[in-house]
């Protein structure tokens, strides 16, 4: 009889899709991939159900520590342990991964080229991505991180667009180059001091000297900065995003970018807090550069996919500012921004793919006026663009406001620095609608583009596509209406992380909580208005 209480859920959800992917060659199929895609979808659904089950039964919101922990010695000679667990940083991202990956499989319906290989890679990626977020062993993390690259490389280089090889090569060179820094920093940290360990929790409590921390932090930052991405390490992303097919796109934007933010929070901030005190202002400045620079670039882009790709870079800037804020609210906002962008980015890229399937062009100048033929796609595209430009009632708004308020009330920075940062970051609030609404206008509004409609058949969204977008919009709006739905999952962990960070800054350590500008004054209670009943 299955013991559900002690069942190794996390190991299961990592290995199940990988194991099932290995069975794909034995799935009977006519050659058109129809059986395989159903097979992959069912595997994805089972795995997602398992994640949700584990989350509902074995995860307690109130605990800031790791839960669902499993640890097995794997290669004792190397000190390598199979050690997995989930805390508030991992759990929401694991849920997101399960959700987006399953939808990405559903979004792959039109893929007909080499379906066996395609779904094999998709399932392998599914497990690998969860692995990155769940493993608690540094060496294992590195392996997972590297393993992830191979499916992405192949998915890009076989199913990509015209410049797919260039894009795939650029992606692998960038990321592999970055990974080198992870390995160096991780090994250095593991071998520092008396006990050699790869266990993340043990690494976090080691007492490193400051110079060591700064070097390790810098190394990690380069590697994770490539992934997030941070200016100027971002140029692989528009190429990779510009060439990927829609489902791969959803994974890239929805999950892969979040690995960078996750790792910065887990390792840079969580393990090297003293260095974080020095690097945090740099993160904030880089965050602003990301927001404004990428928004302007996106505005000038004429290719739809590259436009959205740059918009992702711009949105990731808020993650950096939140991480650098030293407040509960800002950190919480950074995590929420990752989750929110995972959902919004995935939905936008899916819609870009759906539009491309019909128009067969990504150049905005060749589109125009297709709204009449495709009203449903138009409506969904508008909804997702509005979500992306942080319309209240949707998740992006909550995340950005949390970062804004968190940073504005941070006591770690001078008022001038905060003022300039907040003003510049708020410029992004003006720039985002400019490029997103121009994009909508150029695709859908205006008189019908006769040239396009003469040789392309523009059919409106099919139920499958409406279903995918509905699935993504429900959590986007749900979080937007009631953010506590998701923030409560990670609040405890985020708070304990912030305490660690604040303790590393002697000036802040005294104050248990972030203070407001003029906290010394007693707040007066609201007069006049009284509650009825």
């Amino acid at each position, binding site marked *: 009889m299955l013991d559900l209480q002690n069942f190794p859920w996390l190991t299961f959800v990592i290995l199940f899709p990988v194991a099932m992917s290995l069975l794909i060659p034995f799935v009977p199929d006519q050659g058109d991939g129809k059986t395989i895609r159903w097979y992959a979808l069912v595997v994805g659904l089972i795995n997602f159900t398992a994640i949700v089950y584990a989350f509902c039964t074995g995860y307690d919101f109130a605990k800031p520590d790791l839960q669902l922990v499993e640890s097995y010695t794997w290669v004792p000679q190397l000190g390598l342990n199979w050690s997995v667990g989930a805390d508030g940083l991992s759990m929401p991202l694991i849920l997101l991964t399960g959700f987006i990956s399953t939808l990405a499989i559903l979004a792959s319906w039109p893929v007909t080229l080499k379906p066996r290989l395609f779904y094999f890679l998709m399932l392998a990626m599914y497990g690998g991505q969860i692995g990155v977020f769940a493993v608690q062993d540094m060496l294992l993390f590195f392996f997972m991180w590297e393993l992830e690259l191979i499916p992405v490389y192949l998915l890009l280089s076989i199913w990509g667009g015209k*410049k797919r090889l*260039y894009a795939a090569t650029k992606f692998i*060179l*960038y990321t592999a180059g970055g990974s080198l820094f992870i390995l160096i920093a991780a090994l250095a940290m593991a071998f520092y001091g008396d006990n050699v360990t790869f266990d993340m929790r043990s690494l976090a409590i080691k007492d490193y000297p400051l110079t060591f921390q700064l070097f390790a932090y810098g190394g990690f930052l380069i590697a994770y900065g490539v992934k997030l991405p941070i200016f*100027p390490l971002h*140029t692989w992303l528009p190429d990779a995003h510009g060439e990927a097919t829609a489902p791969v796109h959803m994974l890239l934007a929805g999950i892969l970018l979040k690995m960078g933010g996750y790792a910065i929070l887990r390792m840079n901030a969580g393990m090297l807090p003293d260095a974080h005190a020095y690097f945090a202002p740099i993160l904030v400045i880089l965050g602003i550069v990301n927001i404004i*620079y990428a928004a*302007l*670039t996106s*505005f*000038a*882009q004429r290719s739809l996919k590259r436009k959205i790709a740059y918009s992702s870079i711009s949105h990731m800037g808020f993650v950096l500012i939140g991480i650098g804020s030293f407040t*509960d609210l800002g950190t*919480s*906002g950074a995590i929420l921004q990752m989750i929110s962008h995972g959902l919004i980015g995935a939905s936008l890229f899916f819609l870009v793919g759906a539009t491309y399937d019909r128009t067969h062009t990504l150049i905005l100048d060749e589109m125009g*006026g297709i709204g*009449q033929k495709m009203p449903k796609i138009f*409506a*969904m595209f508008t909804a997702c663009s509005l979500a992306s430009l942080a*319309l*209240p009632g949707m998740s992006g*708004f909550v995340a950005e*406001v949390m970062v*804004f*308020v968190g940073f*504005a*009330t941070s006591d770690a920075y001078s008022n001038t620095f905060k003022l300039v940062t907040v003003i510049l970051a*708020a410029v992004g*609030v*003006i720039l985002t*609608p*400019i490029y997103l*609404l*121009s994009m909508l*206008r150029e695709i*859908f*509004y*205006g*008189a019908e583009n006769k040239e396009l409609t003469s040789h392309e058949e523009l059919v409106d969204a099919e139920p499958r596509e*409406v279903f995918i977008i509905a699935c993504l919009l429900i959590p986007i709006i749900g979080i937007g209406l009631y*953010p*506590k739905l998701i*923030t409560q999952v990670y*609040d405890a962990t*985020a*708070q304990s992380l*912030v305490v660690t960070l604040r303790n590393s800054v002697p000036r802040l350590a005294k104050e248990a*909580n972030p203070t*407001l500008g*003029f*906290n010394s*004054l007693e*707040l*007066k209670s*609201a007069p*006049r*208005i*009284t*509650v*009825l009943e």
Partner: protein
Amino acid sequence: MDFAYQYAWLVAVLPLSAAFIIGTGLITFNKSTNKLRKPISILSVSAIGAAMIIAFGILWSQIQGHEPYLWTFEWASAGDFHLSMGIVIDQLTALMLVIVTTVSFLVQIYTDGYMAHDPSYPRFYAYLSLFSFSMLGLVVSPNIVQIYIFWELVGMCSYLLIGFWYDRKGAADACQKAFVVNRVGDFGLLLGILGLYWATGSFEFEQIGIQLNTLVESGAISSFLAGFLAILVFLGPAAKSAQFPLHVWLPDAMEGPTPISALIHAATMVAAGVFLVARMFPVFEHLPFVMNAIAWTGAFTAFLGATIAITQNDIKKGLAYSTISQLGYMVMAMGVGAYSAGIFHLMTHAYFKAMMFLGSGSVIHGMEEVVGHNPFVAQDMRVMGGLRKYMPITSVTFLIGTLAISGVPPFAGFWSKDEILASAFTANPALWFVGWLTAGLTAFYMFRMYFSTFEGEFKGTNAALIAQVKAENTPPGIVVEDHGHHAHKPHESPLSMTFPLMALAIPSILIGLVGTPFANYFEAFIHAPGEVVKAVSGFEMLHGEEMTEFLIMGGSSVGIGLVGISLAILMYLQGKISAKAIAKSIQPLYQFSKNKWYIDELYEATFVKGSRRLARQVLEVDSKVVDGAVNLAGFVTLLTGESLKYFENGKTQFYALVIFIGVLGLVIASSV
């Protein structure tokens, strides 16, 4: 009446559920939903109708002196930070609820007639209901964050509705312009909210006001900084209420269907800015130079709008500039501290301006029968004239609106405008002078509009004139196919359109009487928080000085109004003075007004072109410098590595090197 408070949340939620049902139907079963026209309009209208009944109940209870009501729940929290959302109902909210629900209810009835032939009729109702929800959510907000949320949502609805006819280029440009200009204002609003929270630790209006005042008095923050934050907040209302220099989006917003122009861009959403200033009054009132800035922004905008409205030929554009001008009055009232007068004018204006916009829609509807469905012709007043004969109800109601806005007693506009001007005079006679002059301009351009539309000869059958107007109005590159019925004379609109006109005529005539100086029930009901207002004990004559003051103030504004009206009669009714000759003699001024002070051109040349250029330059840097460096680095590594091998191994490697260089060159060439 506690019963009404129990169900207060329904006021906003009822329209939302209507929007949700229609929207879901449209996205899932598009074809069958599009066929259910009647059920959809009935659903939408009854939702807002029920909300209206609750709103009236709440207003009644508030008039009876019921305690303000507050209901909140925790919305977001992180560590120490807690943010609540909920519902607050005080006098101001109760009044706004009634204004929004009544106008929305009548506009939704009107829509049934106006949009009868539109294939997207159900979508229009979905948007209308969504807007009603957002606007009602805005007015019940207990804190500034909730206001910001609904503020953006009404902006989104406005965006969707301006771009409703998305196949028109004008609509596509206008909706984007509206959203972006409003975002510029929201940029300030957001920063202001953040700054005030940083300084006071609160999102609640009165708390912010009290705290900020304490901080300024104790010297913890300079009054300059406090003022700066307040001005940032005011940028939001400036954009939403179309105040100079952020007014440019409102005239373009007339690209949307006319019911929208009436509901959103005249009666409710644009007044949200004034509403926010009223809510933030506890913050503003202690900062004199902020109040001054607000007052002068309002006064200047009132004047600017009126001077432009004088020369517009498009009936909706004329009304739009008139709206800008009237919003300027309200903002000026807030700036001089005349809280009650500002809200009073908001209310009277909401009714008479909504009626006039709906009237203009009725006119356009009639004109389309004759000249075809071409907005560039059907909305131009030069091809109208003499419509009074064909559209009696429309013309009478429009005349009532014209009299109301021109400040002719006893119509609604007189009382509210007079109160504003009187307060302005006490604060600063210069402000009063601008307002007074604008009142004259208003009377002139409104009667110009009325006479050219409804009096004289009907010119809609003059083919040569139509061709000329069409050539002048149609922007280059736009082709509008004329498809219409081409009847010989316009007809009165159906009852669904004339009923709202007649219903709105009643408040346009009478509602001013609740706020006469003789018995100012309105001020007794709505006044600034903390202000002491004497109770009204029925109609009483003013004594001595007060009476003289009222007579002088009222007399002077009626006087200049009459001058404006007489001029309009001479020029546009009797034709004794030639408008063309005057325009010619002051050609530069005429062009300046007709081209809207060239503000659009200025913005186009600076902000629009500037941001595009900057974006292109950044893209160049990104692809050439940042990405170029990456490609170059890759290239150099390969080159050095390969050339070293060449020296060791000879020929084979040399070929490989050539291939590598070739491939890389291709890659770089194709990527740049």
